């Protein structure tokens, strides 16, 4: 049953040739689109990230990307190994360290809530919260961005390390609305508890990994 058997049957060669030709043409199109937009896309991503970091760290004018591993910290250079924790050091106009920002994430109501938090090494506290990406219910879960009472939790959320600097002295905890007693607790939004908990878990998971690695290396970050 090859192509030669019947007159009105297309030969396999023609089919393979057509598909090959179309695939080649499409391949060229995709690669040129990728190459053509690459610089604009990277620039866009950098701007978006900078904007997010500068929003949680007021007064910052520039930032540098670092990776914290068990061995220490190093400037992020392209693709890093999966083990390190990425963070951003933000500097003021005259080069002084303004704060540190890092990403965290935990499953919320609809999908992963990806957050960016600011860490103030002098006060050993979380001092700002931003959202990188979420698909929470509009008007309910997205209150984490607008609810002033909730955002007040992040004026100075205590994340000091324990005696041997291996973990947080008090894990960040989300408590029921109105029952916050300690500076390391987050007062949940009533009606958006799941999303609030995701924020707390995202911060806690990320801070538990990052801060013990960061603490011995802070001096390296002080100067730009």
């Amino acid at each position: 049953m090859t192509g030669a058997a019947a007159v009105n049957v297309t030969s396999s060669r023609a089919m393979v040739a057509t598909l090959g030709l179309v695939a080649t043409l499409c391949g060229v199109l995709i690669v040129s689109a990728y190459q053509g937009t690459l610089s604009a896309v990277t620039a866009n991503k950098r701007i978006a990230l900078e904007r997010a970091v500068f929003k949680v760290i007021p007064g910052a004018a520039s930032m540098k990307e670092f990776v914290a591993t068990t061995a220490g910290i190093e400037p992020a250079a392209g693709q890093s190994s999966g083990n390190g924790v990425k963070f951003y050091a933000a500097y003021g106009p005259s080069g002084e360290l303004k704060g540190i920002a890092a990403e965290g994430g935990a499953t919320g109501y609809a999908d992963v809530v990806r957050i960016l938090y600011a860490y103030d090494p002098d006060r050993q506290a979380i001092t700002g919260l931003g959202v990188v990406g979420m698909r929470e219910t509009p008007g309910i879960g997205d209150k984490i961005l607008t609810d002033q009472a909730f955002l007040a939790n992040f004026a100075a959320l205590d994340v000091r390390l324990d005696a041997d600097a291996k973990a947080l002295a008090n894990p960040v905890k989300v408590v029921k609305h109105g029952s916050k007693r300690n500076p390391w607790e987050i007062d949940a939004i009533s009606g958006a508890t799941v999303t609030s908990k995701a924020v707390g878990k995202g911060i806690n998971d990320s801070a538990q990994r990052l801060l013990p690695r960061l603490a011995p290396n802070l001096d390296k970050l002080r100067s730009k």
Partner: protein
Amino acid sequence: MALPGQTQLSHMEEFMEGIWKQNPVFVMVLGMCPTLAVSVSAVNSLSMGIATTFVLVCSTLLVSLIRKLVPKEVRIATYIVIIATFVTVVDYLIQAISLAVYDALGAFIQLIVVNCIILGRAEAHASKNPPLRTVVNALGMGLGFTLGLLSLGAVREIFGAGKLFGFSLFGPDFQPWVVMVLPPGGFFVLGAWLLLFNWLKNRKVDGALVKPLEGHTHA
């Protein structure tokens, strides 16, 4: 190029097909997945409409150009490869233009690949018509789809957020109908629009068009 016994549509008629008579959203009710999912705001609707139109025009043009070369056995595979290519291109273009729009549209940009309007146009129209006619028809269809998305997106944004294209309409005292930007709101608004269009169509069929247009009030 018309087949014997078949009346050829003028280019203008071809263009208007997608906007009115064969509107993908309101008449053919195709591509409902992106229509309902991204039409939460007018800006999202507009960007999705433009992206889909771009893919639609480019892929149907290419399909039409190579229509005589492609053996019928592998035509679907060829069309899908071509459509997927232009979706990838548009994916990169949107990332380059605005990451905010890219994040808002999410997976629905990639899902343009399986938008039945596009494969439908490639198979039913582009594979049988010369390039110019195809592009005109695809432009009409794309515009019709965009208009359909916009009419959903605008209504949902106005009621669900009190805004239009991001501009606040009713002042700070407006209590948004959150349900409008949630999935059920999409169905409500689509249902209302379909009702309106079917009512218009029936009125025309009944020959009641002689009466002057009465202002129809809907709360």
